[in-house]
């Protein structure tokens, strides 16, 4: 059991290292598409710099961006996954290992004492969300590295129902033009529509975790995603707020039925270097990297 536990720690630390050094396939593909389609000269130079950074990160085996963020885990835990009791401990040890080895930047600051903990562990950090999957013996791990700059535009608000989708657009677009310009666009945008500020915010994060290019299964929501995407792109804030042909890598929306008296909206943004990953670990501890298939990398 001790050996197996150590193996799981190593797998998750290796996973975190991969996410820090390489973009997920969806972000990588879309970024290249936008770079290819960019018409403005200065904007092209910015995209070239981004692509050069990705190449150097790969060659030198270093994190793409110095801000490796606060590590947030979203777990789908099979109820028959054999290491279910140790997951929190395993993840914490994996983070400490990756912080030292990769290295990741130690980001966690005690909210009251204000000191940096030095190892990316702190009160209620890492953030871990558990979803149970009945009768499964797999563990699916989604990791999001929440950087500071790209988290700054994030917010949620409860609108009046009569403000409608127009009100949601106003809230999202105004936030993007005021704050998104500094958050390293082209951005990944997650929007959550629900009842209260909290659940709408959580839904917006879930939306952001869905790969770019995979539309919401609900056709009406999928259409809305395209509409937001086209309209945000018409503002042309990317790359990096200098202005260009586009604004976003993609817009994903997740919804929940709302209270008749409220229209909650949450907004989460990621930068051009949105770092996220997804991996499945089977009960025999074989792991499959789902988000970075182009690397042919074995975890």
């Amino acid at each position: 059991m001790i050996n197996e536990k150590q193996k799981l720690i190593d797998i998750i630390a290796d996973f975190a290292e991969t996410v820090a050094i390489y973009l997920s396939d969806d972000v990588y593909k879309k970024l290249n598409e936008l770079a290819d389609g960019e018409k403005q000269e200065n904007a092209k130079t910015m995209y070239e710099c981004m692509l050069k950074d990705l190449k150097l990160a790969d060659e030198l085996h270093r994190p793409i961006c110095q801000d490796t963020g606060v590590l947030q885990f979203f777990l789908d835990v099979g109820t028959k996954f054999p290491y279910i009791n140790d997951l929190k401990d395993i993840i914490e040890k994996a983070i400490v290992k990756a912080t030292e080895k990769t290295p990741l930047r130690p980001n966690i600051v005690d909210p009251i004492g204000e000191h940096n903990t030095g190892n990316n562990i702190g009160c209620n950090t890492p953030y871990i969300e558990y979803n149970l999957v009945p009768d499964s013996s797999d563990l699916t791990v989604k990791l999001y590295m929440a950087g500071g700059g790209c988290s700054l535009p994030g917010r949620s608000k409860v609108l009046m129902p009569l403000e409608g989708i127009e009100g949601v657009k106003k809230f999202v677009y105004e936030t993007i033009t005021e704050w998104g310009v500094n958050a390293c666009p082209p951005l990944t945008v997650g929007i959550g529509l629900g009842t209260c500020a909290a659940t709408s915010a959580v839904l917006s994060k879930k939306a952001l975790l869905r790969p770019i290019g995979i539309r919401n299964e609900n056709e009406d929501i999928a259409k809305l995603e395209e509409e937001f995407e086209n309209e945000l792109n018409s503002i042309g804030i990317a790359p990096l707020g200098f202005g260009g042909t586009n604004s976003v890598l993609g817009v994903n929306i997740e919804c929940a039925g709302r209270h008749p008296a409220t229209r909650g909206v949450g907004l989460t943004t990621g930068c051009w270097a949105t770092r996220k990953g997804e991996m499945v670990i089977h009960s025999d501890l074989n792991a499959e990297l789902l988000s970075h298939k182009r690397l042919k990398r074995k975890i």
Partner: protein
Amino acid sequence: MKKVITYPISFEQIRDLKIGDTVYYSGPMGTFRDSGHARVIKEGLLPQNIDLRNGAIYHAGPIVGKDENGNEYIVSIGPTTSRRMESCEAEMIEKTGIRLIIGKGGMMEKTAKACKEFGAIHCAFPGGCAVVAAQCVQKLIGCEWRDLGMPEACWELEVKEFGPLIVSIDTNGNNLFENNKKIFNERLKNLIK
């Protein structure tokens, strides 16, 4: 040809630069984030190994690694959001005599006014391009205020042709990002009824 600003930065070197111009910088510079600014402004402290007068600061918090001999080196060092320092940058310029502020995204009116009054510029390095930036670092000179933690400490660096840097506030107080925002907000009006 590359336009390179060198230390010590005279007013003449930056006077004719306009927003949108691309420049590079060679010389010493210190990383300053929120807490570093507070050390200078509230506590009156200054870094020991570099001179800020006619010098440069970089809004950044690097990843610092250790090589096989135990020596520290800069792994990745992209810029952080400059706007967080808006409340105190004008005072920083006045107190220290810095002429070049490098960061990410834009800054606001108060900083633009100070740039005009004291002869300084703000430049944006492409955000997220942290390994590109690390390649421009020639030497890690020292580190002040380690108690602030790795991101917030003041890392003293020697850089060569650090850039590309896009001038975002010039010595006339023109402001690229605020101008851009006006354009974006005009476009926004067409989208919201």
